[in-house]
């Protein structure tokens, strides 16, 4: 029960956070600052005790060292795997490999960009990095081969955000953790919607292709079998690696962290086999892993402080009450939640949205009764988590603020305007919306596979116990 006079503190805390985030200070620092400020106000109002500050230490220590599971240890291993594939130049080879393998297929370069965006998912811890990397690699080649600026920009921006929804990316990992569903099941649950999404992307990319121009050195006729073999060889190892990580968890051969470690070690071996491994690269990958891990977990610590104080001030009840006061049915509430996430995605990166907003929205989602629609009550959260991930990706693509678009502009040649990018991305947004609507109408697309492989009825509190 919240002390009288302290009830305004929870909404004021949300408002203060929304304003303070724009101060330009690190997001983690802002979260902690707002937490401290309102803890102080809560003490004055009698809702918080000074001893509650000790809970900050126990929460941080407890979450990061829980001896029953090593869930979070998976995160740096996935980051390492993606960074090794990217920094060792294997990613550049992949683009060329896909392009060469598809050289006679209409829209080969666009398809290559889509496949590369999907394969680099584990490296997409920061959407900014994957969009910029894809834009730098692909824009010049696409324009040279006759793609209109809008077509090239659309596919690059869309493919750059695939990391949000392609397993085993770390974004899905945190979405699952924040919503309270099993991480490996979430990975499998994304495969159905992902097949629809990639199918839509690829069909459009092939349909909207420019007149096929021969690639350099390709004017004399069909490619030699050796060249095809080389292209497929470039592709095979990274595809096997990422597929192996996913399959090893799905088939029960390895736990999530074990498969991530195998993936990380495999990425080192691939880089070595392709003579791309040296000490400089290895050290760069380790530093990238450390800095990205620090980035994510500093916000995690900030979110821990914020959510502790928010809960002490009755924030959970406030958010639930807010949604109840709308007096709309479960579908309406879900649509409002998706809309909130869509708008937040215009301004914030995934890490802020997932670590700060999702835990606040989780009780709302848990309270919705979708049992009849999805087949069983325990499947509803999995379905909602998949929808949230798809929605998060869409928000990064949606004009005018979708920041994958701004990043694509930043890395594009001068002749590509922001208007080109807005025009080019529209078909991909329509595909996104179509997939979201399809998954909403047919939840089995997201729940059928994980339900066959895992026991989803097991209770868990946002942790995947190994």
């Amino acid at each position: 029960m919240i002390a009288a006079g302290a009830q305004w503190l929870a909404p004021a805390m949300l408002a203060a956070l929304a304003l303070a985030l724009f101060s330009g200070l690190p997001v983690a620092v802002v979260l902690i600052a707002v937490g401290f400020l309102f803890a102080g106000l809560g003490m004055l109002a009698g809702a918080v005790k000074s001893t509650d500050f000790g809970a900050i230490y126990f929460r941080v220590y407890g979450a990061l060292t829980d001896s029953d599971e090593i869930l979070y240890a998976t995160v740096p291993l996935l980051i390492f795997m993606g960074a090794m594939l990217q920094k060792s130049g294997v990613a550049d080879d992949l683009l060329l490999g896909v392009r060469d393998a598809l050289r006679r297929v209409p829209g080969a370069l666009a398809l290559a960009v889509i496949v590369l965006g999907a394969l680099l998912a584990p490296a997409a811890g920061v959407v900014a990095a994957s969009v910029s990397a894809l834009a730098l690699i692909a824009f010049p080649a696409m324009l040279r081969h006759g793609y209109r600026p809008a077509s090239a920009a659309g596919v690059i921006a869309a493919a750059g955000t695939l990391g949000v929804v392609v397993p085993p990316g770390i974004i899905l990992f945190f979405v699952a953790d924040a919503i309270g569903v099993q991480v490996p099941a979430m990975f499998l649950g994304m495969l159905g919607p992902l097949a629809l999404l990639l199918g839509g992307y690829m069909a459009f990319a092939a349909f909207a292709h420019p007149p096929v121009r021969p690639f350099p050195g390709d004017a004399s006729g069909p490619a030699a079998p050796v060249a095809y073999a080389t292209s497929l060889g470039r592709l095979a190892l990274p595809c096997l690696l990422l597929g192996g990580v996913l399959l090893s968890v799905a088939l029960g051969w390895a736990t999530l962290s074990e498969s991530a470690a195998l993936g990380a070690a495999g990425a080192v071996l691939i880089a070595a086999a392709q003579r791309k491994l040296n000490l400089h690269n290895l050290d760069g990958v380790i530093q990238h892993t450390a800095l990205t891990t620090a980035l994510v977990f500093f916000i995690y610590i900030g979110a821990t402080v914020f959510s502790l104080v928010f809960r002490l001030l009755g924030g959970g009840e406030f958010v639930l009450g807010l949604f109840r006061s709308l007096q709309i049915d479960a579908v309406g509430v879900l649509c409002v939640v998706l809309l909130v996430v869509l708008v937040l995605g215009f301004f914030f990166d995934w890490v802020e949205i997932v670590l700060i907003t999702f835990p606040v929205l989780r009780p709302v989602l848990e309270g919705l009764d979708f049992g009849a629609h999805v087949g069983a009550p325990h499947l509803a959260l999995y379905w909602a988590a998949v929808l949230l991930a798809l929605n998060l990706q869409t928000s990064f693509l949606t004009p005018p603020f979708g920041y994958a678009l701004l990043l694509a502009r930043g890395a594009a040649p001068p002749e590509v305007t922001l208007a080109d990018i807005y025009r080019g991305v529209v078909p991909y947004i329509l595909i996104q919306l179509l997939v979201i609507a399809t998954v909403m109408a047919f939840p089995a697309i997201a729940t059928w596979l994980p339900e066959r492989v895992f026991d989803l009825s097991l209770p868990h509190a946002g942790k995947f116990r190994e």
Partner: protein
Amino acid sequence: MDALARAVSAISLFVARLTVALMVILGAWLVPGRHLRVGPDADLKEFIALLFFALVMGSLGLGYLRDAHVRIDLLSKRLSRRARAAFELAGCVGVVLPLCAILIAYGGDAAWRSFLQGERLAFGDLPLQWLVRLTLPAGALLLLGAALSVSARCVRTLRAPRGEGSSA
């Protein structure tokens, strides 16, 4: 303060290189090791969890020093360098330093009690759990060092004549 920044960087990078390398090697060994029945699987998992904890706590300061943390600078990038330095200084002194103080005080106390009680590790049965508990205040100490170094950089920017000074 530059020496402090160098020291924080050196310690953080040493911890990162050691922990990431060990996490990859030992983590990749878990599956074949289990099939070959070499060594206790659970102990190795516990150890990897501790490596992860050390990596997180060891990297926070490095991330702060290298400005690797997420910022929403839509509005702040329009501010002058001095105004941004003033904001940054307020964040360091008003938020990061108190957070470090809480983590060091509570974490140090927990490590000391663990040492006095001879608390044993979850693996290996050695009375060294205090080392694990010490990781959190040690990481907070590195973050404190980074925050002091960034604060000094901000003070230099604020003290510099207008139009000069290093960036915050």
